[in-house]
């Protein structure tokens, strides 16, 4: 069963509007928060154990704590550039409950002392953008945004910024570059955005789901929030389930929920009577798991890390046993090459080589040594660049090749897929076209 904590009222169409949102408890926590000491809110968030829901899983309260202790202007930036393949939870949150995010953002902004916030939404999410802009207008009219919010003396302005199609802008420093009207290239850290971010001012970047959760921490207190999940993975999380399951969709469950139940119970099992072969548990950058590993896995940061993969953004991609793993990996290598920003050599060149080598195997021209070459190239891409895109490109390769090596070897030896028994069908895209951004 789902635990509808953040998503309790998502079935109500009226929850999208200010009136409907207020009827269901909306903005009560904001009123409460504005009477609190900002530091008390930060402490509560820290005590709740809330971790960033965008992918990195870093403690939200701790991130806020990195801000300099002075009166320098600072920004709150909501990361709504949802682009990790397999992830579609933020889109639902923005379209069904824009005020939930806005309330969470005003509370967070008050806590960190920010007078201006932006929601950076990926350019393709036209409906999310329109919905948010309407909701922000409603909030201004009701005195929930602008000068002297609800008579508290706290001023805050909020706006939406539309991205223009670049996965890398989901990386927080890439997002800041983009918001500054530049190429979305990440910046070297330190300095971290909390010290030097948007326009060189302290900036806190948090995911949509993270900011939406803040209000619930205030409502139920840190201990109440901890009713769900585990000590280190507290609270509920939205998981985006996709691929070869009967009922794909977003599901909210407490962290540490069994992965197999997510697939078999909530997801209704594998489609078309097929068997489970593999699962990518945390967005395409997370190492793939075998069906046997899935049996033992729970959906929390610790368990998945122990198993050599990660919870990431909570995007679970299910692959059935009729699918060819060489083909699946080829699809992902193309993605990473396309999305590399081209700034760092190991990533720019490495993503290109990974794509070329996998496609060479697929086209029937692979050599046995190419399999180890893939591992070697991927190894050389890890931990060597400004941001984590290079690692994100390397990890799927290493896990696919290691765990499903037989399929790669078969393809090299026979020039056709072990699973499908057929030679590779040329993809529509041009595998060697290069980077879109570099």
């Amino acid at each position: 069963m789902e635990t509808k904590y953040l998503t309790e009222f998502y079935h109500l169409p009226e929850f999208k509007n200010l009136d409907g949102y207020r009827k269901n408890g909306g903005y009560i926590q904001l009123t409460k928060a504005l009477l609190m000491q900002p530091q008390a809110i930060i402490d509560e968030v820290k005590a709740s154990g809330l971790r960033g829901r965008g992918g990195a899983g870093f403690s939200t309260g701790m991130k806020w704590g990195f801000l300099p202790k002075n009166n320098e202007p600072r920004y709150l930036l909501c990361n709504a550039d949802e682009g990790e393949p397999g992830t579609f939870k933020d889109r639902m949150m923005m379209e069904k409950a824009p005020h939930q995010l806005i309330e969470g953002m005003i509370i967070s902004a008050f806590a960190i002392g920010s007078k201006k916030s932006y929601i950076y939404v990926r350019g393709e999410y036209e409906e999310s953008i329109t919905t948010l802009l309407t909701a922000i207008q409603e909030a201004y009219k009701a005195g929930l945004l602008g000068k002297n919010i609800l008579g508290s003396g706290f001023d805050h302005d909020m706006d939406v910024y539309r991205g223009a199609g670049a996965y890398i802008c989901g990386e927080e420093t890439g997002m800041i570059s983009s918001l500054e009207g530049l190429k979305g290239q990440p910046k070297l850290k330190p300095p971290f955005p909390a010290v030097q971010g948007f326009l060189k001012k302290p900036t806190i970047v948090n995911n949509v789901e993270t900011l939406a959760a803040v209000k619930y921490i205030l409502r139920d207190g840190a201990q109440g929030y901890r009713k769900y999940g585990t000590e280190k993975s507290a609270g509920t999380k939205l998981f985006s389930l996709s691929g070869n399951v009967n009922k794909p969709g977003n599901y909210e469950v407490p962290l540490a929920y069994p992965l197999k139940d997510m697939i078999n119970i909530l997801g209704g099992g594998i489609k078309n009577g097929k068997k489970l072969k593999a699962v990518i548990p945390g967005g395409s950058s997370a190492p793939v798991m075998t069906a046997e590993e899935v049996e033992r896995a729970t959906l929390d940061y610790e368990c998945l890390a122990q198993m050599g993969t990660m919870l990431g953004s909570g995007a679970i991609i299910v692959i059935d046993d009729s699918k060819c793993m060489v083909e699946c990996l080829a699809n992902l290598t193309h993605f990473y090459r396309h999305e590399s920003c081209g700034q760092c050599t190991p990533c720019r060149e490495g993503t290109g080589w990974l794509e070329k080598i996998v496609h060479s195997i697929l086209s029937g021209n692979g050599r046995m040594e190419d399999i180890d070459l893939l591992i070697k190239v991927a190894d050389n891409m890890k931990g060597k660049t400004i941001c984590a895109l290079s690692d994100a490109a390397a990890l799927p390769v290493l896990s696919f090749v290691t765990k499903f090596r037989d399929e790669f070897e078969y393809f090299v030896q026979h020039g056709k897929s072990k699973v499908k028994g057929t030679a590779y069908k040329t993809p529509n895209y041009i595998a060697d076209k290069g980077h879109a951004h570099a």
Partner: protein
Amino acid sequence: MFQLSSEAKQQVLNELKRYESKQSAVLPALYIGQKENQGYISPDVIKALSVLMEIPESQINEVFTFYTMYNKEKVGKHHIQICRTLSCMLVGAQELTEHLCKELNVKLGEVTRDGKFTVTEAECLGSCGTAPMMQVTSLDSDKYYENLTPESAMNIVRAMK
């Protein structure tokens, strides 16, 4: 030579005032320019924006070429973008693309002879639970069509004027 309409000029000027930094207006301004120029950005558009915004062409140009939602070449009146990334591929995105290209008699990236359609592939569009899907960008709308079959997609496309 391309010129921005007075309405578009006003929109760009508003964007210039909207953010803390003037440069932040470049991304929104490119969207405005693209809309004014039938869905793509030519060197003339960059020139016009540069003059109006008082930002060097080179600076606008490097932003333009970085992002995929700004079209580098002319596209059809309806730009059909089919998501090709893993979740969509697993449930038939490739077949969807092939069917649309065949029925419309175009290769990926080409404009149909009547100027109405362009089919391209896009990277993950965040509609993985409702895959396969396509996004259709027309002059005044941008819409997701989800849970498609090759046939249902073609029916949607045929109904477009």
